[in-house]
Structure formats: C-alpha cells, structure tokens
C-alpha cells in the first residue's frame, strides 16, 4: 500500500464558475503523479463528501472564490466526520482573507493557498503533508 499514488479529490463547491484555479491544480497534481478526481463545478458539500467516500481519497482540495468559504469548509468538515472519514486531509485555495484562513485552520483545514501560489508549492505541500490512508 505504501507505494500507491495518493488519491486527491479536487472539488469546486458553491455556485460560482471560477474553475481556472481548480483545473490548473487538478492538472498539475495529475502531472506530478497523483491520482486526481475533479468534481466539476457547482457541487454541494454533500456531493463532495459523497465523492470523497466513493473514491476513497486521501485528501480534498477545495477551490472557493465566491466568499462562501466560512460556510462551505465547515459544512464539508462536518459531513466528512459524520461519514467516518474525518482523517481525509482538507486543503484549499481562493480569495480568502487572512483572518478567515486562521479561523479555517483552527477548524481543521490543513492549508490554504491564495492567488499567486505556485503549483510547485502546492505539489510540495501535498507530498509533505498527505499520506495514504
């Protein structure tokens, strides 16, 4: 099991259509050798938690640019716990003010990336912080 590639769900919750970042990250993670599942746009927290369970992923990367991060991240954390997969690593990116990043980390989000982050930085972070479950 130790050598299997990490499985990462790149998910786009909320109603907005800003998928440039999500698609770039999904592709960069795939090119870096991870197994990537991309949900597509307009996912509800329930849809994302369900996909995470179905696909048996090690981590979820959430991309949020709608300002709804303080609602959506906690909702997903709660649903993952309810489904017994609270150990899935959650990280994210988007237009997120610094105070909100601090609060989201307190609530269980492992890392947040804001505009300007390189794909290499994200890949390196995943390698260092995500492990096969």
């Amino acid at each position, binding site marked *: 099991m130790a050598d299997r590639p990490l499985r990462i769900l790149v998910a786009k919750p909320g*109603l907005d*259509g800003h998928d*440039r970042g999500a698609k*770039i990250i999904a*592709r*960069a993670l795939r090119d870096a050798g991870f197994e990537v599942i991309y949900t597509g746009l307009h996912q509800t927290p329930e849809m994302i938690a369900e996909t995470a369970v179905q696909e048996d992923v090690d981590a979820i990367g959430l991309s949020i640019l709608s300002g709804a991060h303080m609602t959506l991240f906690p*909702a997903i954390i709660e649903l993952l716990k309810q489904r017994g997969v609270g150990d899935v690593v959650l990280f994210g990116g988007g237009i997120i003010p610094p105070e909100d990043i601090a609060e989201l980390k307190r609530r269980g989000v492992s890392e947040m990336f804001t505009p300007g982050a390189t794909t290499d930085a994200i890949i390196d972070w995943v390698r260092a912080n995500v492990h096969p479950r």
Partner: protein
Amino acid sequence: MSTAKREWLAARYPKDADRLPRYSTVSDMEVEPVYTPEDLPDSRYERDLGQPGEYPYTRGVYPSMYRGRLWTMRQFAGFGSAADTNERFKFLLAQGQTGLSTAFDMPTLMGYDADHPRALGEVGREGVAVSMLDDMEELLAGIPLADVTVSMTVNCTASIVLAMYLAVAERHGVPWTKLGGTIQNDMFKEFIAQKEWISPPEPSLRVVIDMIEFCAQETPRWHAVSISGYHIREAGSTAVQELAFTLADGIGYVQAAVDRGLDVDSFAPRLSFFFNVHNDFLEEIAKYRAARRLWAKIMRERFGARNPRSLMLRTHAQTAGCSLAAQQPLNNVVRVAIQALAAVLGGTQSLHTNSMDETLALPSEQAVLVALRTQQIIAEETGVTNVVDPLAGSYAIEALTDRMEREAMAYITKIDELGGIVRAIELGYPQKEIAEAAYRFQQQFDRRDKVMVGVNKYVQEDQPPIEILRINPDVERQQSERVRQRKRARDAARVRGALAAVREAAKGTTNLMPPLIAAVKDGCTVGEISDVYREVFGVYRDPAWL
C-alpha cells in the same frame, strides 16, 4: 520579415544584446525587437484604418472620440442587500461616476432565491441579492432611470432580471423607450468561460434571441446583450483567443437572430461588447483596434448589414482581475492605471477599473474611490484624450493589430468548420483551448518566465494587512426571511397563473418577455421562474473537462 530589416538585424543588432532568451506578450505572442514600415507591406490607410468614425472603425467608432464625450466611468458594484448596494450606487454617482453597473450575488445569477438551501453562505457575498421585484425596487430607489444608464451583469437569469428592471421603470413612470443600459445576457461565454448556467446551449440561445427581439421593438436604447470576452480572458485565454471567441459568439447571436427572421439592421446597432484589458500594453491596444475592424468586416461582408451603426463595435472594458496580486496589494493601483490607459488608447466607450483589494474581498469604499480617480486622472490630467487614436501609425501597434486580426480570424474559420459556435461549445473546443492557455501561463509563471512583481519576484514577507470590506453576516438571514415573508404575502392563485403563462411560452415559440414581466409583477421570484426553465428546457451540468 522584410529584407532591409533582416539585414539590419543581422548586421547591427548585437547577438548577445537581449536580456531574455525570448520576448513575448503576456499571451505569449512572440514580438520582434523593432517594427518598421516593412512590417506593414500591404497596409492601406483608407482600407485598413479609415478616419475615426468611418469604416472599418479601426481608429474608433466616433469622429471626435473623447474630445466629444469621455468614456462612461462605470464601476461594477453590488454586495449585501439591495439597500446596501443602492447606498454604494449613490456614493459612486456623487463621486462623479457617470453610469451604474450591477453585480448580483451567486444565487441570483444561478436562479436560486435567497431562502433556497443552495444559496446558503452565498447570499449577498459576491454581489447583491435580488430574488423578487421588491428587491429590484429597493436597488433602484432614487436612481433617475431616464438619465443614468445601468448595466446589469447577469446571464442565465437575465430575462427575469430585465423583466424586473422594466417593471420598476414602469412604477417610476419612466417610459421603456427612455431606458438606456445593458444586460450582459451572453450565454455562449457562460458555457465557454464564466460557467453560470441553468439549461443547455440551444434553449439558452432561444431566450437570448427572445430578448434581442423584444428589446429591438420595445426598448430602442437598451443593449439586450453584451458580448463578452472579459470572462474568457479571466479564465486564462490569450488575447487572440479572447478576441476570436468573443466575435465568434457575436456571429452566433447575429446568425440566430437573422434565422428567426429579424432584419440585421433592426437589432445589430444595439449589440454591445465587453473586453478585458490586461497588462500587456501594446497587445491590448492592438486588440481593441483589431476587434473593431474585424467586427465591421464581419457585419458588412458576412451579414450584409447596411446601417453604419450595425458595423460599429462599441465596447465596455474592465481591467484584468486575474492580473492583480494579493501580495503587496498597493501595486495593484499601478497595474490598474496602466491597463486603464491601454483601454483608453484602444478606444473603449465605457470602463471599469478594478480596486486594489479585489484579490482579497469585494472592494472597500476607499479602494473603489482610488480606482475611479484613476480613470478621472487619465481623462483629465494626462492629455491622451485630446487626440483621437494617437497611436495609429505606430509600426508596432499597426503590425500587432494586423496580426491579431489575422490570428483571430483563423480561430473564427476553425469554429465555422466545426459547425458554428453552438457545436464548438458542445465539443468543448473553446473551453479546452482556454484551459490549455491557462495551464501554459501557469507553467511560465512557475518557472518565472512570466513575472508578477511582488508574487514571484521582488517578494516581501510579512506585508501589513489592508482594510477590506466585510459583508454583514446577518444579510443572508435577513434576506432569506424577507423573501419567505413576501412569498407568504402574495396572491397564490395569481402566482400560479403567471408561472403557467411563462411555462406555456417556454414550451412554445412566443416571446418569453411579456409573460415574464407579468410574472415578476405578480411576485414570482427568480428561483420560481428558473424552476420553470429547469423543467421545460432541462438542466445543464459541467462536463468537467480537465
């Protein structure tokens, strides 16, 4: 490349002079070290440029351009409740802004009421919450609708929002014929780039054409569609792709309206455009000039338009949100100023300048004021408005204009070969081209081949935070409660009847606008009418191409 220039480059241009291995625009279009008359071998002034205000409008759509009238300064605004946004509108008008532009929140844009479960966390966040006619009434309270032009950025629910706007105008006693403004209503670019949709492309197009037809008859000063490249560029396209896909979308609408039996000159004068304006100064100026020339040719040669106003590409411009950085945000003021200058030198009719804090949140009052002042400084201090199309004749500008026209036309031909823009969208052609360009740029950025100051070069740690706008968290609860109350207070039988009439029109071929206007007056909501669209037209889902 021509002989004399090639000889000069070989003989006199030092082999090791260049700082960089290659020079290219932000779109990665490689540029030459110098441009000379030989880069314009077939150029003929009368045919390719023409005087300002004359075919093919390369030099601008009006003879006097900004000497006669400045561009409209139109800051996109919307957050929280209708009352919050109404207050911001009045602030902007008091500061010398000359038009309004409305940002709606995601639930409104996607066809959900504030009290819908899918709206949770999104009400009033990314724009203003408008679920019913009363919200629109509050949004426009005290705004002189016969004098101020209002732009509304809304697409798959545009028909409903326009119906509300017309109903409010009626209540204000302003005749529809006096209303000036624009509703974005560009569904093709939604499928290509912005990705707010309800139903598949074909029925979405039908609604757009219903609106073009209705507005041509009832609201002669209103733009029923704003054909938009902005979001295409933000999604990561190159400048050429932005230009090409936008004009291909325009061709799609004109063809569909003509196919319905409309005379091209009856609606084409009210088509408007909306382009991005990014960092690469020369490329951007060339893009606006190429856009006008290409559209004029398309309208005349492909569609046989005769009215000069049908041939004129009139456009709004917005500085590139994707060019801004969260790091060292004050630098964004400089980026925006340079981009805005390019839009003005490119000949835009209307302009939004982004605020320095938009990579962090919706703009604060302070930040939006600096953005507006940037336009006012360009207009009234720099002198660039005193001369029409002052960069015409620059070898580089003209060569880049020619090249962008040529490369955009190649894309348009490719889309024609695929069977037109609807088919191209169904195949994912523009979507995949854009994703490819976005990924290419990201790789160049990661390698520092493309520099963002303060982000991948000249980085400073521990930047002090700037003040940002916080949306009152009570807005969502208050707005959803208000919508629930108002729904209870309606005449239920009238609501049912009005929705049935919309359903009937949607299933048939009669124009949707009259029953929509009746429905919003009876209190039908954005969500309820969108549900009718979902039921009759079906639901579109993201193909999630990577």
